[in-house]
């Protein structure tokens, strides 16, 4: 059984090729991808429609910042991982302590961070039933 089997992971990334690459990788490890989405509005719109176990978020989405999505996910107790080109220095202070994978993404590191974040989260598919 793959590491992320049964996990529903929201992917927010404005660069198609990066999004496609990450989606391909996470799916290969058993995850179902919600998205990918390239804007805050699109990502926010899906939160109430789909159960989500964890999220991988790029911070700079073609000029807008992903933070409203992060806030909404934190409010729902959904663990998030930032996949970003930003150093801590350039992030909003409130989000600095959260898990972060610097770009270019080390995929095996991302996998570990996601598994750690999901360790205590029951799978949404079983929780709903």
């Amino acid at each position, binding site marked *: 059984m793959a590491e992320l089997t049964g996990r529903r992971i929201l992917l927010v990334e*404005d*660069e*198609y*090729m*990066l*999004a*496609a*690459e990450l989606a391909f990788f996470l799916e290969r490890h058993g995850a179902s991808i919600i998205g*990918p989405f*390239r804007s805050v509005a699109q990502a926010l719109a899906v939160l109430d429609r789909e159960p989500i176990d964890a999220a991988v978020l790029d*911070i*700079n989405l*073609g*000029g807008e910042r992903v933070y409203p999505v992060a806030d909404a996910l934190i409010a729902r107790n959904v663990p998030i991982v930032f996949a*970003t*080109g*930003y*150093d801590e220095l*350039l992030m909003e202070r409130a989000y600095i302590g959260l898990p972060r994978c*610097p*770009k*270019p*993404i080390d995929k095996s590191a991302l996998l570990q961070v996601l598994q750690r974040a999901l360790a205590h989260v029951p799978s949404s598919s079983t929780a709903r039933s």
Partner: protein
Amino acid sequence: MFGRLEPVNAPTPTRGPPTDQLLRLMIESAHDYAIFSMDAAGVVTTWNTGAERLMGWAHDDALGNTADVIFTPEDRAAGVPEKERIEAASRGRAEDERWQQRKDGTRFWASGLLMRLDEPNAGFVKVLRDRTAAHLANEQVRKSEERFRLLATNIPQLVFRSMSDGNRTWPSPQWIEFTGLGIEQSLGFGWLDAIHPDDRPPTLAAWEAARKTGEYYCEHRLRRRSDGQYRWHQTRARPISPGESGDWVGTMTDIHDLRGLQERQKVLMAELQHRTRNLLAVIQTIVSRTLRGSDSLQAFELEFSRRLGALSRVQALISGVDYQSLDLRDLLVAELQAHESSQLDSGKVTLDGPALPLPAAAAQALGLALHELVTNAAKYGALAQERGRLAVRWQVDQHGTERTAKVDWKESGVVMPQGAPRRTGYGTELIKRALPYQLGAETELQFEADGVRCTITVMLKSKTNG
């Protein structure tokens, strides 16, 4: 000077020395004081040793001559000696502080007292003391004070004087001008009114700290009267004399623009970091996608270096226009020129369309897609075959407030390769998936009978969006 007097505790009461003699002795021995008398017209009648020493005139020379010679020529011309005698005659005494003159013409600062003698027409007695040193010291202080005021009121900084707790004792005119608070309003702690309310606690806390460190430092916002704007200022102050002192001098420097630049620099740094890292991430995807589509490492190397070349051409174009919009035509020309077989001037290629500025973010995705089209054309299509032609035409349509750009890539005269359907490659994915995802574009890619046809329709945003 009393050395010759009888001891006061003599066993039997004795008479003191004759008053005349006592006075004469006192006057003669008072070397630091010039004491002399004159008649009602100002002619010298007595002249003590102190007068000889101070003024340079010997007793015998002075006697019988006018005492006016000790005044400067300017004062004599202005009738000062006579006025003094008139004042002393009517009021009993006349005091003055002024420059006086010695026999050799040098001057000294004297504090003088002219007293009228009681007997009618007895004349006057004058006592003079040389106060030159003290006067020069006072002058020095006054001039130094003047220089401070001159400096404090002419530099662009707002200057103030203060007690060690921040209690202000003097604001410079620049402060008054900048804040609109008058002197009275600024004294004590009135100046706090001009500080942003949020910055007042740290401003006062910094004064607490300054008493320990001997130096005040604070950055806070100060309200400008002319437009009500709070502008960042850097305030520094130190005690005038080191050690224990209640008197501090400080300056407030406007650093608002500087702080703005620092903020801007941070934003630019963030943007730069975002772009650099994203570019690396894009390269990372190109590597893995190219690797998956390559039969051999040689094939990988060739394909990867071409794609990297396309990416760097787009980057060069974008940085050439300072990350503002760049024109579609420039993007096409750069990509076509990169292929030797493109023969831009040979008539094989037609480029036709209006100026079409593309946001930097769109340019990168579009540049990579165009690279795949050009590469394909140069390998198998219009640019590879003698009779092949390539026409790229574009137009901008206005529908109400919306503007759409339509790009039409059409190859013709191409003998299409026979056989198996083309596998879906990186270029196809860029056109069919990436452009719709990133730019919201509608795309079509068809392999027609005489060549490849690709149309890209994209909505142009009215707002500038990188």
